């Protein structure tokens, strides 16, 4: 069990939020859910998660703006981000690099694959920190 690792999930689509958070909770993570970018930023400041999984299109603060806001905050800028997006939509490499987005997953994604990627990203983050 990966107890102790905190993951913040931001998506305005409740069903995605539920599926992702249940999958992560069952895998032993502590999960915080936000329905928009602003709420996600507040939760990030409150809990300092180990990973952010965010949708691209969200009200108030888009996924990209949310990631940029994390980068601008000294306490949060180390948090790696994964982005979920509609299939066929691609971000410029410059954007993903600047915003600290380490992986993109296109919807409809496989939850099993998501979990694999999360493990991979967290392992990578640990390596970077070491």
């Amino acid at each position: 069990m990966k107890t102790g690792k905190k993951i913040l999930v931001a998506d305005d689509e409740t069903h995605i939020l539920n599926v992702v958070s249940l999958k992560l909770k069952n895998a032993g993570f502590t999960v915080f859910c936000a329905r928009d970018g602003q709420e996600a930023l507040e939760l990030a400041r409150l809990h300092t998660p180990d990973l952010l999984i965010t949708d691209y299109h969200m009200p108030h603060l888009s996924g990209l703006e949310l990631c940029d806001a994390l980068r601008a905050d000294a306490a949060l800028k180390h948090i790696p981000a994964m982005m979920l997006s509609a299939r066929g939509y691609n971000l410029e490499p410059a954007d993903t690099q600047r915003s600290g987005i380490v992986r993109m997953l296109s919807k409809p994604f496989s939850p099993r694959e998501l979990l694999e990627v999360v493990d991979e990203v967290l392992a990578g983050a640990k390596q970077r920190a070491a």
Partner: protein
Amino acid sequence: MSVLTTGSICQAALPNDVFACLIERFACPGRGVAVLDADGAIVVSTYAEALLTQAVETNAAAITAGARECVDVSCVSWPASRVRTCAFIHRERGSVHCVIVLVCHDSVAEQTLAHEAQLMRLTLGDLMRMHTSTQEIDSLSTQLSNTYEELSLIYRLSSGMKVNRETREFFRQACMDVMNVVNVRGMGVVLRTTNETPLASLYGELTLPSNVLAPLATELMKQLDAKRQALLINDMTARPDFAFVSTRARQLLAVPLERDGELLGVLFCVDKAGADFDTVDAKLLASIANEAAIYLENAKLFQDVRELLMGLMHSLVSAVDAKDAYTCGHSERVALIARELATVAGLPTQIVERVYMSGLLHDVGKIGVPEAVLQKPGKLNDEEFALMKQHPDIGARILRDVRQLGDIIPGVLHHHERWDGSGYPANLQGNDIPILGRLICLADCFDAMTSNRTYRRALPFEVAMLEIRKNAGLQFDPELAEAFIRIGEVRLRELTSGHHEQASRLIAEHRSLRVA
């Protein structure tokens, strides 16, 4: 505060989190909360004092009976214990589920306790509704998660459905993908073949020796052909028809691969981890079988069309060869040599593929040249040569109407152009000559030189090679001529030998026919 719980029993009465919430809100010094089961036995309780515990234990049956008779909350004072209880029934789906008891000293007014119990009853209703909703959301999310998994599986399968992929590779990948989503020990595919024995492959952790897999494949084909629906077996030992595999496999799920009512094969899974195969599994496997059947159909159509095209091309070539048996096998050899040349010269795959087809058909226009000219022994006069020079144009015209052959026409039309611009039909020069034309020109000349003709015997390979070197930059593209020499004599002999023998045989037959 002492809490008296026995885990599993507690869950049977009220969910842990719901009970914890009730305690948090209503139990306090001087107030206790107890849950009794439908028969009046205490399953969980929390009391401020031992006195309260004893009072509820002593009077459990009477408290339960009182609550049952009452539609609302039932407040009773127990003078012997000097306590007061207020109880109500918690029902689930209409039947008595448990009795909730709030207990305190009888110094507390009945009305106060009744009021608290009322609040508790309402709160419990809310908590239970929330609990049910959470459970429902979790269950829906699990279902949704599985649906995403299946959706992404089907998406992955359909994007892997390119027909030029090998069938075996398609099914191997499909089985691996499915096993990522459904936890089974093995997944396999059975495909009908032209003979009686179907082709079977099995992937995953489970392996079956061929003397088990083969009869399994045959049995599956037989049963699913007779009954075109999912075959779901969760206990193999109960199936005498599968006795030969029952020691190796516990469960089996098989679905037909079907197209237009014809059984193309069977897709099957063996042994699901920790559960029985159910209709959800069957449905998923059926939709994968559906995708796979479409793939098989497409692959077959693709193969048919390709064979039809190649067949037609070869019959065109045969038509040319029939007119001029001395050049028999020439087209095939030119095609092979030109393809080899394109490969050695490092040209793109597309050109390599095209030049073979183009080489095969380069002389197709000779159909329109009189036989007397084609087979004349000795030199052609001007008029005859003019007729002969028409064959590239005629060939291009013959192929013009076949859209799919458009790409190869430049090779047919321009294989008699010369690098110095003195060739025909367009007098193109240097790099203006399409690459297919330049490639076929070299292959054509080489094969003409090294074959017997009506007017001379075949030249030795070395002489032909010298001719090519000599004419590089005059007749031939100098870079391609270089590449041609790099092919080497050994390889050139390999490429042309079979066809020379075949040609000699045909020429002999042709001669004997003429004599007769």
